[in-house]
């Protein structure tokens, strides 16, 4: 299964690479005009197009690009005049930190909240949390970001910096306070799914015969929760963590832009503004690889965690 999924994954990535390459080719006023500006003479533009290799046939350029990309060379950024991979490195790390922190916090909150809500089903805590979850999952992330900034940075309290601007090339962990608001925003948007999924999975586990039996036997409640119920609720929870990470791959674009957070999401928006084709190609492809890989990993984990799927015919 792993092998089959991996092959399909590779095929998907190749198709996405072609799609990305073709899509970025159609950008109006190609890189040469973007670099030289609107006032450049046609002769100079033609010269630069030739220097950049923009006048070769599409297939040649794609194969050339793909061959170099396979060896980790995605070309030079057109607007920043440096290899894409070296420019992206630290930003990739910054985005990874953001996504990892958000995933950890939201999963923890979701599981604890979901378990408590499942335990006291239809109590006030459950109703309140379910309502909050419904509300916050419906909101667009940049609207949440605006509310968070108003509340914690600009209008009501002045606790955290409203934007996460850093000197170019610095790592976000060198200024942790600038991580706070983007994390809070994404946690608000993402936690509801972890919460809803954990709640549903825990309710199913708690209603089962084995939990009933453990209760009758007099097993203390924490032990029932953590030893009997939680492991059986694991598969759906892993699934929702995977889905959350997938969502974050797209969600960081807007949130990083709102906060001027130095990650690849903001860099993608800048690259699109600058018509910086190699940069767009690399970032989109990186996000696609992340998504496809994550999908496979999630599936494998779910299979490993649910015996019924592992041995379907018993």
């Amino acid at each position: 299964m792993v092998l089959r999924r991996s092959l399909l994954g590779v095929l998907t990535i190749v198709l996405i690479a072609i799609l990305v390459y073709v899509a970025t080719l159609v950008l109006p006023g190609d890189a040469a005009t973007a670099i030289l500006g609107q006032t450049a003479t046609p002769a100079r533009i033609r010269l630069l197009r030739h220097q950049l290799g923009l006048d070769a046939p599409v297939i040649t350029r794609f194969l050339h690009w793909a061959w170099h990309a396979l060896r980790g060379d995605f070309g030079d950024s057109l607007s920043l005049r440096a290899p894409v991979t070296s420019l992206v490195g630290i930003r990739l790390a910054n985005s990874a930190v953001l996504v990892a922190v958000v995933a950890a916090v939201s999963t923890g909150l979701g599981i604890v909240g979901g378990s408590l809500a499942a335990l006291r089903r239809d109590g006030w805590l459950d109703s309140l949390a379910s309502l909050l979850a419904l509300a916050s999952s419906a909101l667009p992330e940049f609207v949440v970001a605006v509310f968070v900034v108003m509340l914690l940075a600009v209008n009501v309290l002045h606790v955290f910096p409203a934007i996460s601007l850093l000197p170019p090339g610095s790592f976000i962990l060198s200024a942790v306070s600038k991580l706070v608001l983007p994390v809070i925003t994404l946690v608000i948007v993402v936690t509801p799914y972890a919460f809803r999924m954990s709640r549903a999975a825990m309710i199913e586990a708690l209603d089962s015969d084995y939990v009933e039996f453990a209760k009758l036997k007099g097993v203390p409640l924490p032990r029932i929760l953590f030893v009997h119920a939680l492991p059986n609720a694991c598969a759906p929870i892993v699934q929702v963590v995977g889905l959350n990470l997938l969502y974050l791959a797209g969600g960081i674009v807007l949130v990083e832009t709102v906060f001027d957070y130095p990650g690849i999401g903001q860099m993608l928006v800048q690259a699109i503004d600058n018509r910086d084709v190699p940069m767009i190609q690399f970032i989109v492809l990186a996000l696609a690889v992340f998504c496809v890989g994550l999908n496979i990993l999630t599936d494998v984990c779910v299979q490993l965690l649910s015996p019924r799927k592992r041995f379907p015919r018993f």
Partner: protein
Amino acid sequence: MPDQHGSTAPGRVRGGRLARAIRRALRTRRGRIGLALTLLVVAVAFIGPLIPGPSPTALRTLPFAAPGHGHGLFGSDDLGRDVLARVLHGGRRLLLLALASTVLAIGLGAVAGVVAAYRGGWVDALVMRLVDVLLGVPQLVFVLVLVSMVGPAVWLVILGVGLSHAPQVARVARAAAQDVTERDYVRAVAAWGVPARTVIRRHVLPSLVTPLMVEFGLKLSFAIILIAGLSFLGLGTQLPNPDWGVMINENRVGMSSNPWAVLAPAILLALLALGVNTLADAVARANLPAAVAEDAAMQLLATESPVTDPGEPDAEVWA
């Protein structure tokens, strides 16, 4: 007898199913709250431009003037334009774009899903592979790259958002259609020599109405979020036309002097997203079995893992 009424009966059934599904949702409190919120924002967006008042693009006062003192109910924005006027004019386009792209997504997805389910074989494999490819890129990134190609053209935003939402609709439609095409009576009709088009129209499509309507509600709420996000990034709109997403971005810098320039469009967007989402949720809960409805709501997460896809023979290699 069926021949006499054949052309009208499916339409009647479909209309009946739609009306019944909506009525069922509106009987719940959740459904009524969702509808009320949605209608409120829709009213602002469509009646707003008709209300006489200052022009939404006229430069009137100093930038970021606080409300009151002749600066209007919500003050002025980054260029000294009237925030109230811009709020009233800034929603219609978003709603129309969201509606159009959702219709496109449902149409494309339903056709792809039904064809895949009905034909099976390599057509099915091809369509589903395409679905996986489209789901491999985050939706916002997909539309972002597409829209940045040609610029802020309306048709491109509709096409991009529609295309990015169609794959999931195709999965739902395929699962539902597969369910029907495997029934004996449908097989019997097909074996009889009735053309595929007629079989699909008369026997497969009617049973897709309810799941597709649930999809429509969900996809509409995603489309609103996606299009608002695009215009926040400055794509898909034409300056200086007012737009709620654009307003939030333009006026962020002046949040401390006139928060209303950001707060007013943000609140309207929030209410709209909440309303449509709540309504869609109510429709799903009222018309689908509980487990499926929960699944449908979880789709908010953009990409669905194939584990939940009943068509995927999961564990074959483990066995």
